[in-house]
């Protein structure tokens, strides 16, 4: 009986993890501009991977015998690296003055035309 409940829990965690990872990727594909797309992978995916890793910890600790906590390391590294990479991507986006939705409120100085020199790259994001 105990194992049935445990299997249910593990399966639920795996499915939830898969769903969250999928939704995160979906967000990256169909939100409207670059800065909004960043939100998908930084948030939804961390929880997705987190659930899968928790499921893995439970499964291998019960079935495999002995505690398996290496997955915790993956979680920690993920939580350290995800914000940093998102920050760098956003910074690059600002630097290249990527287009963003007109209804976005607040105009950061980094994106104003007069604050910048000419677009430094050939593949200008503003090209249609």
């Amino acid at each position: 009986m105990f194992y049935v409940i445990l299997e249910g829990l593990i399966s639920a965690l795996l499915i939830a993890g898969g769903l969250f990872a999928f939704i995160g990727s979906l967000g990256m594909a169909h939100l409207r501009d670059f800065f909004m797309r960043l939100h998908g992978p930084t948030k939804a995916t961390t929880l997705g991977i987190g659930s899968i890793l928790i499921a893995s910890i439970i499964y291998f600790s019960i079935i495999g015998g002995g505690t398996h906590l290496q997955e915790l390391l993956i979680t920690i590294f993920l939580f350290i690296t995800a914000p940093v990479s998102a920050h760098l991507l956003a910074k690059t986006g600002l630097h290249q003055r990527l287009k963003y939705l007109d209804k976005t409120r607040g105009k950061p100085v980094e994106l104003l035309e007069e604050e910048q020199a000419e677009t430094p790259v050939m593949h200008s994001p503003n090209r249609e």
Partner: protein
Amino acid sequence: MIPAQRWLPTPVLSILLLVVWLLLVNEVSVGHLLLGTGLAIVIPLLTRRFWDVQPDIGNAFKLLRFFLRVVGDIIVANLQVAWIIINPWRRTRPHFVEYPLTLEKRFTITMLASTITLTPGTVSANVRMDGKTLLIHALDVEDDETLIRTIRERYEMPLKEIFEC
């Protein structure tokens, strides 16, 4: 860079390295404890010149409470963002918010920026070079005053208490 004269320049980092080593090999035995301790002493000494000044943890209990709060917020954030993504009638209100920082140390600012990225609907986009404002992109926000106040009370003040007092 950390002062060179000390034998164990970064005690917290050393303990962390030992824990990470034990987690990596996934076994606690005398041999691995010794090996891990050796690595925990040698690695900080070798990499000393790359490290910034180490943060002082003022209050470990508050740090734990902050950590648990952030984990809770990460779960809420995920549900919110997931709902915004799959809701076909979504109405997003993207907003660039300039957040005036009251933190001073670089380490604490990094912590705050990472926390903001992991929590509901916000990604920190740029730390201005003067270190006084943080540019945040929010996915769905009503007005920036509330957002700034929430971040200030929920994350910045605890961080300030933990690391800068």
